[in-house]
C-alpha cells in the first residue's frame, strides 16, 4: 500500500469518518501531552530555569522517534515523502514569530496545545491562556494587512528540508539529529542535577537502552537510503473513468486504475497540439509548457511561453514544480518528437509531479498542425528520430506565427480531451496553519 492514503489527506464531508480519524489523532495527541505533565504550567516554565527539562526531553524524543520512523518508511518505499506536508520556509516571519512565541511561552506558561491539555483538566490558567489565544490569533488576522508583503515574501524559500540545505543524504541528517538529541538529553540531565538538585541514579537504566536503539535505528535509516526513481515510478497509479452509454438506462461509469506504463501504452497522457493550445484559454487550468529539447533546437523554434529545460537538467527544477506553481498547473512536455518528452514524463511522474502530459508528436507535429502554411518552414528530408523535422532560415525562437496561433482563427478545434485535472491537496492551510 502507498502512504499517505489519498482519501485521508484532508477532511471532507463526502467521507464523514475523516473527521473521526483526525479527532482520534487529536485525542491521542492531547492524551499524550497530559500524561507527560504538560497540563501543569510549572513543568513547562521550569524548562527555562533549567530545573526540569521535561519539555526538551518529551519534544526531542518525539521528534527523534517520529523522524526515524518517517524516513525509515520513506526509505522502504512505504511512505511517499512528496505527499507529506513539509512546512515551507519563511525565514523572516518564522524567526520573528518564533521569538514572539518564546515570550508568550515564558509569560503564559503554555504553548497552544498544552493549554488544551491544561484547560481540559480544569486548570484555570490553562483556560485563560486558551482564551488569550483566541484574542491573539484574532489580533493577528486584524493586523496582518499592515505587513502582508513582508509576511508572504520575506525570506521565502518554499519547501526545503535540512538535507537539501546541507547537501547531504537525508539519512546522514537523521543520524546527526539523533546524536544531537542524545547529547541534549545528557546535557539536560546534567542541568537538572545542578539546578534542579535531581538524583540521576534514580533514573531508569532503560533510557540508555532506548538511546542505543534510537541510534541503531538512525544508522539503519542511513543504510536503507532513499528509494530509486524507478521504484517510485513503478508505484504510481492513475485513475480514469470510462462511461458506457446504455439504452434506456443511466450510463455506467467504471473507474479504471492504470500504472504509469499503462498510461503511456494507452496514450492517455499524449495530448494533441489542439488540446495543448486550447489549454491556454481554459480558465480552470494553468498550463506550463516545458520544452525538454537542447537549447539550440529551442532557439530555432519554440512555442510561445515554453520554458526550456533540457532533459539532463530536468531534475534541478523538480523541487520547484512540486512546490511553487498553483495547484491547477498542467505540465505539457515536448521534444521534437516524443522520445525525450517520454523520458522526461517518467522522471516527473516518478518524482510525484502531478498533471504531467506529453505533446503528441512533439514540436514537429505542432508545426505540421499550426504551421503547415508557413512558407518559411520547409520540411527536412533526412530528420532522424526525435530531431527537428523542419529547416529554419534563422533562429527566430517563438517569432513564427505558428508559435502563438491566433485564438480567433483557431476558435473551433476538435479534439478528444485527455487532460484530467487532478488538484493537489491545498497545502496553504496545512500544518499548524
Amino acid at each position, binding site marked *: 500500500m502507498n502512504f499517505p492514503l489519498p482519501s485521508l489527506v484532508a477532511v471532507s464531508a463526502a467521507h464523514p469518518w475523516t473527521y473521526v480519524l483526525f479527532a482520534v489523532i487529536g485525542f491521542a*495527541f492531547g492524551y499524550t501531552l497530559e500524561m507527560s505533565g504538560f497540563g501543569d504550567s510549572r513543568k513547562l516554565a521550569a524548562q527555562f530555569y533549567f530545573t526540569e527539562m521535561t519539555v526538551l526531553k518529551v519534544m526531542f524524543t518525539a521528534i527523534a522517534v517520529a523522524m526515524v520512523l518517517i524516513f525509515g518508511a520513506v526509505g522502504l518505499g512505504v511512505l511517499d515523502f512528496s505527499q507529506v506536508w513539509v512546512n515551507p520556509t519563511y525565514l523572516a516571519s518564522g524567526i520573528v514569530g*518564533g521569538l514572539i512565541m518564546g515570550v508568550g511561552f515564558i509569560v503564559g506558561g503554555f504553548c497552544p496545545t498544552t493549554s488544551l491539555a491544561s484547560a481540559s483538566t480544569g486548570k484555570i490558567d490553562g483556560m*485563560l491562556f486558551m482564551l488569550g489565544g483566541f484574542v491573539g490569533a484574532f489580533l493577528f488576522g486584524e493586523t496582518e494587512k499592515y505587513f502582508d508583503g513582508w509576511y508572504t515574501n520575506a525570506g521565502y524559500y518554499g519547501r526545503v528540508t535540512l538535507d537539501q540545505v546541507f547537501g547531504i543524504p537525508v539519512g546522514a541528517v537523521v543520524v546527526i539529529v539523533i546524536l544531537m538529541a542524545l547529547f541534549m538529553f545528557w546535557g539536560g540531565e546534567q542541568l537538572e542535577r545542578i539546578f534542579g538538585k535531581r538524583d540521576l541514579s534514580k533514573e531508569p537504566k532503560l533510557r540508555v537502552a532506548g538511546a542505543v536503539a534510537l541510534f541503531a535505528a538512525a544508522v539503519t535509516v542511513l543504510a536503507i537510503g532513499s528509494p530509486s526513481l524507478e521504484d517510485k515510478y513503478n508505484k504510481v497509479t492513475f485513475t480514469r473513468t470510462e462511461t458506457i452509454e446504455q439504452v434506456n438506462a443511466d450510463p455506467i461509469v467504471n473507474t479504471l486504475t492504470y500504472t504509469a506504463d499503462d498510461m503511456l501504452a494507452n496514450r492517455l497522457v499524449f495530448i494533441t497540439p489542439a488540446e495543448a493550445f486550447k489549454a491556454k484559454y481554459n480558465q480552470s487550468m494553468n498550463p506550463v509548457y516545458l520544452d525538454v529539447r537542447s537549447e539550440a533546437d529551442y532557439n530555432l523554434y519554440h512555442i510561445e511561453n515554453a520554458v526550456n529545460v533540457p532533459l539532463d537538467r530536468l531534475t534541478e527544477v523538480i523541487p520547484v514544480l512540486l512546490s511553487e506553481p498553483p495547484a491547477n498547473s498542467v505540465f505539457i512536455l515536448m521534444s521534437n518528437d516524443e522520445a525525450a518528452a517520454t523520458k522526461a514524463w517518467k522522471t516527473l511522474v516518478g518524482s510525484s509531479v502531478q498533471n504531467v502530459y506529453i505533446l503528441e508528436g512533439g514540436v514537429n507535429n505542432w508545426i505540421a498542425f499550426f504551421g503547415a502554411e508557413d512558407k518559411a518552414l520547409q520540411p527536412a528530408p533526412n530528420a532522424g528520430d526525435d530531431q527537428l523535422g523542419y529547416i529554419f532560415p534563422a533562429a527566430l525562437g517563438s517569432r513564427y506565427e505558428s508559435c502563438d496561433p491566433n485564438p480567433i482563427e483557431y476558435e473551433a478545434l476538435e479534439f478528444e480531451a485527455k487532460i484530467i485535472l487532478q488538484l493537489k491537496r491545498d497545502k496553504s492551510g496545512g*500544518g499548524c496553519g
Partner: protein
Amino acid sequence: MATQTRKSIFNRPEKAYVHPYFGGAVLGIVLFLAILLTGNGLGSSGATSRLDAAFVDAVAPAHVDNTPYLLKLAGGDKNPLDDWIVPVFFGALLGGFSSGFFSGRLKFMTTKGPNISNRTRWLMAFLGGVIFLYGARMARGCTSGQALSGGATLSAGSWVVMFAIFGGAYGVAYFVRKYWL
C-alpha cells in the same frame, strides 16, 4: 497552597506523570502515524484562527471581506472549520480530559509559581496566550505544527522557528523569574 489540597473531581487517586522519554516516544509514534496515514502532522494553533474566523463570519460577515487574512480562511462560500486541524483541536481537548480523568488529575486549580497570586497568574496566562498565538500565526505554526511536526519532517524553516521559540523564551525568562521561582 489551598489549590493543591483540593480533591480531584470524581475522587480518583492522582497518579504520577509518565517518564518524559516514554511520553516523548509515544508522542513520536502518534506523530508518525498521523503523517503516515494522512500526510499531515499535528497542530492546534491553526484551529484557533479558524474558530476566530468562523466567529467573525457569523457575527460580522462583511468584516471578513475587508480583511485579507480572514478572506483566505472564510471568504466566499469557504467554511473556515472545514479543515483537518479543527477535529484535531477538539480531539486534543477530549484526549487531555480523558488522560486527566484516568489519572485523577481533573480538578479546578491554578498552576503557578509559589510567590504570585492566582489573579496575577491568570492575567499572565491570558497575556501569554495573546502573545503566543499572535506569534504562532505569524510563524505559520506553533510548537506542534512547526517545532514538532516540521522538526520531524526536517523542514529547514521549522528548525529555525524551533530555535527562535527557545531563544525567545530563554531570552526573557530572567526578567519574569519572579512569576515562576
